[in-house]
Every structure is written in structure tokens, then in C-alpha cells.
């Protein structure tokens, strides 16, 4: 009786282990998908980064260069502070857009300009890992893996599509490292993002922990 039950338990155990193994195997074979990327991004609650930007505008002799600091505070505060060539700040928080340049400050309701709202929601959606918000405004294609991904976005809203042809965000783990935009009419902008050392140290551990999290479900 005792041995019979023992055998049965052993058999159960072996079946269970096989099941778990196949599950593990199957999960590691999954492609890197949007919810997963959003999961990685969502872990980064806030961060600050330096950026350099090059804009290629048709009709101008040579690219326009700009550099400055980007910062994001979850869930909805996004600030782009341009330091060169002219100091200028653009910040969005909730539904308020504030522009400061040349010593003047302007405030606008973000949702009164749907094109802008779409752009901002896409950025905020990406940075806060809110896939729904992103997919409301853009068709997305994700390629690569957690250690090097590219997210291609195409606007859905016709008003935005009349201005922006496509956007490409690239990054590693939970960090966005580049934003490229292509506009209708042929202008382009290429932005490289370097996480700040202070914020970066906070951001680095999130990548490996995210990677290990992927294999544990």
C-alpha cells in the first residue's frame, strides 16, 4: 500500500516536472513582444537623460543641431530642456503644455491640439510602459530583443499622419536610447539619448532584473 502510493506520487512528480520543463522551454521560445517591452519600460518610474539631436530640413544648408536634457516623471510629466543653441523648455504635465523660450512662457491645453496630444501620448505611453495609450495613436512594429529593440510607429490619426510619416524608438531593456522621426515633406530628426549617470545607476539594475523576470513565469 505504502510503496504503491509512493510510486504513484513519484509518477505524479515526474509528470509535473516534465510539464514545468516544457512550459519553461515554451516561454523562452516566445518572441519579444510589445507587452513585454512595456513591462520593461514600466519599471522605470522616472529618469533623466542628455540628448543630442540633429534635424535635416529640406531647403536649409546643413543640419540643425540641438542638445539638452530630457526628464520623465511617471506617470505624465515630460520635460525637454534644450540648452544649445538657444535655451528653451517644453514641458507637459497632465493636460498642460508649457513652452518657455526667449524669456517668455506660454501655457496651452494639450488636448486642444490633437496632433500634439498624439505625439505626447506616444512618448508618455512608451516611457511609462502604457501600451494601450501608445496603440491608440500609432500602429506599432517591434523588432529585436530585450537587449536591443526597435519600436516602429506609424500614426493612425489622419491629422497627425499629415505631418509625421513615422517614428522609431530604439533602446535596451527599460531604457529608450534613440528617437528618430520622419516628417511628411522629407524632413527628418535623429535624437540620441544618454541616460544621466545619477539616474543611470538607478536604471541599470532594472535591465538585468527585467531579463531574469522574463524567464520565471
Amino acid at each position, binding site marked *: 500500500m505504502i510503496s504503491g502510493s509512493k510510486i504513484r506520487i513519484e509518477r505524479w512528480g515526474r509528470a509535473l516536472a516534465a510539464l514545468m520543463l516544457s512550459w519553461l522551454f515554451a516561454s523562452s521560445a516566445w518572441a519579444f513582444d510589445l507587452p513585454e517591452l512595456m513591462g520593461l519600460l514600466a519599471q522605470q518610474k522616472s529618469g533623466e537623460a542628455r540628448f543630442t539631436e540633429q*534635424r*535635416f*530640413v529640406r*531647403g*536649409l*544648408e*546643413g*543640419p*540643425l543641431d*540641438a542638445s539638452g536634457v530630457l526628464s520623465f516623471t511617471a506617470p505624465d510629466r515630460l520635460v525637454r530642456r*534644450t540648452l544649445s*543653441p*538657444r535655451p*528653451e523648455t517644453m514641458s507637459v504635465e497632465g*493636460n*498642460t503644455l508649457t513652452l*518657455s*523660450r*526667449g*524669456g*517668455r*512662457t*506660454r*501655457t*496651452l*491645453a494639450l*488636448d*486642444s*491640439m*490633437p*496632433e*500634439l496630444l498624439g*505625439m505626447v501620448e506616444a512618448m508618455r505611453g512608451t516611457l511609462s510602459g502604457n501600451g494601450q495609450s501608445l496603440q491608440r495613436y500609432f500602429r506599432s512594429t517591434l523588432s529585436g530583443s530585450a537587449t536591443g529593440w526597435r519600436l516602429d510607429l506609424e500614426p493612425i490619426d489622419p*491629422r*497627425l499622419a499629415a*505631418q*509625421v510619416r513615422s517614428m522609431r524608438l530604439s533602446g535596451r531593456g527599460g531604457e529608450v536610447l534613440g528617437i528618430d*522621426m520622419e*516628417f*511628411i*515633406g522629407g*524632413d*527628418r*530628426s535623429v535624437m540620441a539619448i544618454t541616460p544621466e549617470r545619477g539616474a543611470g545607476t538607478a536604471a541599470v539594475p532594472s535591465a538585468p532584473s527585467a531579463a531574469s523576470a522574463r524567464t520565471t513565469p
Partner: protein
Amino acid sequence: MTRAAAAPGRRRVALTLGLWLLALLAGATLIARTHFSADLSAFLPASPDARQQILIEQLQSGIASRTIFIGIEGGRDAAQRAVVSRAVARAMRDSRLFDLVQNGDTSDWKDTGTWVFDHRYLLAAGLTPERFSAAGLRDAILDSLSMLGTPAGNALKPLLDRDPTGETQRIAEGLIPASSPRSEEGVWVSRTAPRALILATTHAAGSDLDAIALAIARVQGAFDEATREMAGDGPSLEMTGAPVFSVQSRDQIKGEAIHLAVVGGIVMGALLLLAFASPRALVIALLPVATGVVGGTAAVSLVFGEVHGLTMGFGSTLIGETVDYAIYYLIQARGAAVAGTGWQRWRDIHWPTVRLGLLTSVCGFAALVFSGFPGLAQLGVFSIAGLVAAALVARFVLPVLAPDGATGMGMRRQMAQLAGFLVRGLPRLRWLLSGLGVAALALVLWQGGYLWRANLGAMSPVPKAMQSLDAELREDVGASDGGTLVVVHGSDMQATLRSTEAAGQRLEALVDKGDLSGFETVTRVLPSEASQAARIASLPDAATLRSRLAEATQGLPLPAARLEPFIADVQAARALPMIRRADLAGTPLDAVVGALMFERTAGGWSTLISLHPGASFDPARLAAALDGLPDVQVVNVGDELSGLYKRYLRDAFVQVMLGALAVVVLLAAWLRSGRRLLAVCLPLVVAVVLTLGGMAALHVPLGILHLVGLLLIVAVGSNYALFFDQLRETGRADEDTLASLMLANLTTVVSFGLIAISDIPALSSIGRVVAPGALLALLLSAAFARTAAPSGSGPR
């Protein structure tokens, strides 16, 4: 046999009836030609201070009185609402009934955009000689370049060669309000509800209700047209705003007054039929009522030149009191020993009491006539004229038509029995009622000023649901209402514009600090001529500009050679004539100017700067920022309105107290007995205190119209109290007198009860006070009657 002698002579009959009919006809003719108004400003003081004057001018004829908020709600989806919004807005623009129609569709701003672009060097606020120095040009060009290669770049690129310093963009930024509505599908929508929004300014003045009604009908027509194909799943139309309310109030109060008159007439007719069992008596009883309403309305029309809708609604409350006169007469003139002499007996025994009651009412309402508030004064004139007319009819016309009162008996015996039972039973409850009175007084005193916490809005004839819809639409549109305004005065238009620009500069600093998120000022589209001249003077000649541009664009990817169109435009601008008010006529910008600048009725000009408070807004910092500008005032609309109302309430209190004092003095002079005076006044005071106590216990916020209601309790109740005084003095409590009191009270309570359930807050607040108050006045008069009426049936 003695009839001919006792009854009024034939000639006198003819004269009386003739005079009465003539007066009635004259009154009706006058009313037919009367203008009915409905704006709340009639309830604003006639002699305000400077700030209140601005507010009142604005409420009466300012942009607020011409702005209509339109919501297109529900339906299938946002796309459908956008289609309807565009169609309705287009039809509204085509109708020419509106100065400005905004629905978020920017296509109609195209011409305006071109005009702004052509006049940019006259409009640009920051245009100084420094801006056109080499360094200034370089900064400005860098700012413009920073927008290229961004989502906004495509809009700016075509202008780069002609406007490299981005003046157009800066002007446009200033014209977009900081709190614009949300935009979806290309039109304005609500942030909280499935609703598309349209904001319109009527061409007609807010006081021209017929023209406003036409404009509103046009909106409705356009909406019906746009949604005709949508059958079941189309959206619905909502409209609010002062003009809509004025028209609605006029119609609603008219309708409500008629409705109340009809329902009240039917109920009262049934009561009178029960009491008299005679249709003839019923018709006769209604004559003083009709005469009173006609007389009151005609008198107001004569004195004020127009009748406020609220006064008309109030007219229906008068039915309750004027019908009493007929009831007293019809019952009390009965039972004459010689046929045809009943009216003489009534005239001798009862008329003095009725007359005294009338005089006390008139005294009470006379206080309102002298009120500094036209609306309140109208109520006073209406009441006095109405009561006097009704009493005159009862005294002179009814004796002609029914010399012996009403013949039928109907249910009066039962009424008299009930009345007799009350008269005998109630005095036992005297102590209980006194105790209740003391408790009520304690409660009223304890609540004190808190009891009188209703605000000006409670006087509004606009129903609560419409008020909250209005608040929602205003919130959706981002209209700054009830907030803070900056008002600038000047002796002429240019001086006013210069002061406005000075205020604007100080406010700009607050915007940079974040205290304000923005402000709207007329000088963005109509700068003072001094500023325009200064801007033109800042523009360098072609050669200078060319050489500065060469320096400014060094190292930039924008070569100076590309900027020749810019140099040409600047040269053209130096020859442009100044922008004058007339140049804006017919453009959407004209409506902007009309909203923010106006000629004062008292002379001179004023401009308004409407503020959009920022996160760190502080009224003290705002005042400090504008300190030292003598022509500039900060007006907090909410504070001013509540200050107005407080003053209004205080004045009304004084007037009501004076009225009450006049009533007491009159009674004292007539009764010539402290004991009798006390006996008459006590029940009235207790009735008022108990009514107030009840309101306090039910947590009803009281306002001015409740106060007027209290005055009505005294006016109506004094009749009851005086009859009980008469009963005590004569020692006779005959069935007929008691029955007439019962019936008179019943009709009063019923008519005010009907008003109490009215949809119009102003009317219902009067009804809710007077209906219970009048009942209490009768019961308390009976309860405090010192000499209990002799038991058994009185003399027949």
C-alpha cells in the same frame, strides 16, 4: 318694496360698472403694449459703486449677455457629432445673426490668419529696436529654426523666408486662449461628456429678446436640418447662456404664470363652488382677482416702463390674497333682514376690518417700493396696486352685482362647524404653540446669519438643471466665468488702449512666473496707435536690415540671401496705415474687440482683460503687479456679486422691518388699545417665527424672496387676526364670518401651495414660506383669541 331705496341707484350702478370696465380695458391695453423683461439685472441695485457698475453693465449689455453655449450631445459617435457641429456652425455663420461662431473648426480663421500675417509688424507686441538689431535677429531666427524638423515645422516652413523672426507665430500664440477646449475630429468637444461644443455671440443685444429668440430658433432649425437623416441615433441639442435663459425665462415664467393661474383657478373654483354651490358666485368671486392682476401689472408697466417676468409670476401669488376679499364679501353680506341691503350691512360691519387689513398690507409692501433694487420695487408696486384694485372691486363693484352676497349654502355649514371646533379647541393648545414658538425663535437666533445663506443664484428664474448644464458647458469651453477680471478705464479709446497695454505688460510678467497661464486682451488685435507707431519706428530700412541679416545669419544654415522677401515685407510694413477699429469690421476679430472693449454709457471707454489663473495664482500678487496703474482695477466677479447680494439682503431686511413697523403703527392708531394691538400682533409674530423655525429645522437656505414671503404672511395674516379681533370686540362669532375665514384661508394656502411646487425657484421659495405661514397665522389667531367664541351656532 324698499329694494329701490336700499340698492344702489341705477345711475350709480352704471357709473360704477362703467368706470370699472373702463379701468380694466385701459389696464389690458397697457399690458398688451408692455415690454416683458427677464434678465436678472433687474434685481441688481440701481445705484451701485464703480466696480458694481461695470459688472451690471456687463450683465446687461456686455459679451456675457450675448454669449450662447451650445452642446451637441449623445448620438452615435464623435464623428457624427463633428458632422452635426460643422453643419450647425456653418448655417449659423451664414445666417448673419451671430457676430462670432466658434466650434474649433479653424477653416474660418483662414482670412483672419492672412490679415494677421499682413499686419504682423503692427501687431507684434515684442517689436522693439533691439529685436531688429543683429543680435536680436539672430536670436529670433534661431527660435524659428528650432521649430523646423519638428511636427510643427511644416506649418512654419512656408513662412520662413518672409517671417524668419517668427512674429506671426508669436501673435498666433497670444490669440490662442490658454484654456482652449479639447479638440476631436477637428471640432471642440467636452472633456467629460460625449458632446461637441459651439460657442456663439449673437449680433443682437442681450436685451433684445425677440431678436435673440430668432437667433436661438435659427440654431434649433440648423440642428434639425443637420440631424434629419439620423432618425433614432442622432445627438440632441443643448443651449445655455444668458440670452437663452432670458428668452426661456420669459417664456417659462409666462407659461408658469398661466399654468398657475389655470390650476389655481380650477382648484379655487372647485372650493368656491363647494362653498357657494353657485356658478354665479364663483364668477363674481374671481372678478377682484382678475382686476387685481390687471391693475398690478398695468401699474408696474406705467411706473417702470417694463414688467419683469418674475413680477408677473409673482402676480399669480396675489390670487390667494385677492380672492379673500370676494369671499369675505359674498359670505358676510348674506342674511340681510331686508333683501338688497346685505351690502350695506357688510359695508358698515365688516368693510372697516377688510379696509384695515388692506391698509396693513399696503404699508408692508410700501417698504419694497422704496427699495434700491428695481426688481424688488416692482414687486411692491405690483402688490399695492393689485390689492387696492381688488379691494375697490370688492367694495364697489360686488355690491352692484350681488347686493346680498352669495345665496347658496353649499358646504359652508360644515366649514363653519370645523371653524367653530377649531376656535373652541385651539386656545387649549396655546401653551404648546407658545412653547413651539419659543423653541423656533431659539433655533432661528442660534442659526442667525447662517439661515440667510441663499445666494444671488437662488433668485435666478433658471431651473437648477439648466444652471448645472450651463456650468458644465462653460467648463468645457474654458470660459472664464465668475473669476477675476481686470478692468481698464480711459477718457477716450486710445488712452484706454494705452493703459490696457501697460496692464498687459505687467500681466506678462505674471504669466512668465506661472501665476497666470494666460490672459486675453483687446490690444493683441487692436494695439494703441502709439504702440503701432513705435513698432513701425523700430523697423530698419532695407540696406540696414540687409547688412544686419548678413551678420545675424553667420554660421546658420539659413543664408541671408534667402531672406529678401522678408526685407521687402518689412519695407512694405513701414508704409502701412495704422490698424483702426473700423478695419476689423466683419472679421472674427471684430467680435473679439467687441467682447473686450466697450464705450461706457456714462462716457469714456473701458476694456476688460480676462485672466486664466495658473497653478500658483494669488489675488494679492495680481493686485501688487497692477499697483500704481491708476486706470486699472481688479474686479473679482464672485466677490462683487456676493457683496451686491449681501447689500441687497441687508437693504431688504431694513425695508421689511420698516414695513412691519408701519403695520404696527397703523394697527395701533386704529385699534387704540395696547391689549388689542398685542392680541392682533402676537399670532402674526408667532406665525412668522414658527415658519422661520420650520425652514431652519429643514435646513432650507433662505434668501430675499423668502423675506418677501414673510411680509406676505403678515399682509395676509393681519386680515385673519383683525377678524378675530372684531369677533372678540363684537362678541359675535357667527357661522358666516368663521366660514369666510376658513374658506379665505383655504384658498390662500392652496394657491401658495401650488406656487410652492413651481419649477421656478424664485416663485417656489415664496410659496414655501407663505403657504404654511398663512395657515399658521389663522390657527394662531384662533388659538390666541382671548375671549373664546361663544359656543353653539351663532345667529343666523
